[in-house]
């Protein structure tokens, strides 16, 4: 694809950012997928939690939130509880 020589700089930067965020191997793969799915669809995926501010250790900040519940569980009970709603 010779798109790279013709698209404008902002679009190139957006494509590079989108490729990185979405985990594509390269920008060409991302572009192919964007054409197929529509760029808006990809942006929506990327921004699933973008409305919230990020912090390095937000999970550690509530360490032990479920410690008591987990300690009460028998071996494999968590796995069974997770599956239970699907059966």
């Amino acid at each position, binding site marked *: 694809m010779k798109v790279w020589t013709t698209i404008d700089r902002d679009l190139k930067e957006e494509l590079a950012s989108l490729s990185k965020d979405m985990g594509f191997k390269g920008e060409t793969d991302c572009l192919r997928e964007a054409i197929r799915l529509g760029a808006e669809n990809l942006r*929506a995926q990327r921004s699933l939690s973008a409305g919230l501010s990020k912090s390095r250790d*937000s999970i*550690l900040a*509530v360490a*032990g939130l*479920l410690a008591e519940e987990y300690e009460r569980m028998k071996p494999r009970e968590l796995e069974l*509880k*997770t599956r239970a*709603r*699907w059966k």
Partner: protein
Amino acid sequence: MALTFVDANILFKMFAVSRKRLEGYHEKGTSGSKALDHAIDILLNLYRGGYSTSELALLEACGVVARVGNIDKATLFLRAVLEQEGFSILGVTALVYPLAYAFVLEYGIGARDALHLGVATISGVNRVATSDIEFADGVEKIGWGARSRGIKIPRIVEAMYGLSGQERHILENRATSALSKMETERAPP
């Protein structure tokens, strides 16, 4: 870039790590529980990136928290996951469904596992971490199928979603490529 899918059960365990357990892990190299050690290993590396879960797995985990804990804890849980740096939440997009049907109809795996694996396949995940034996077995079974005969979308599913031949071909190729290289990380239960 390597991307690991973290299943709902491991997600829950990350929140079961108390300060005391964490101190034990830092001081003695173990929290006293293999399952929590595994969750801590992921937890301490989350901010570096390369980890993900799906909105579906997150919903599952929230559901368990609401049932075994309470709704306030479930809300805190959800917020902490969404705000965690380096942790991607993968969307359940329309393309996940034909793949999930294919996994169920071709390999007989459960609906839950099929949807999780569909999200992982579409989103560029190359490792699935889970303590659920059935899920890990299913991922390995489909990975083996992808390497030996490729992923095929059944005709009935192609018709159901109105996929063109070319769309089916692209989806099959992408799934075959992703699942051939998909690894499993079996976490202690």
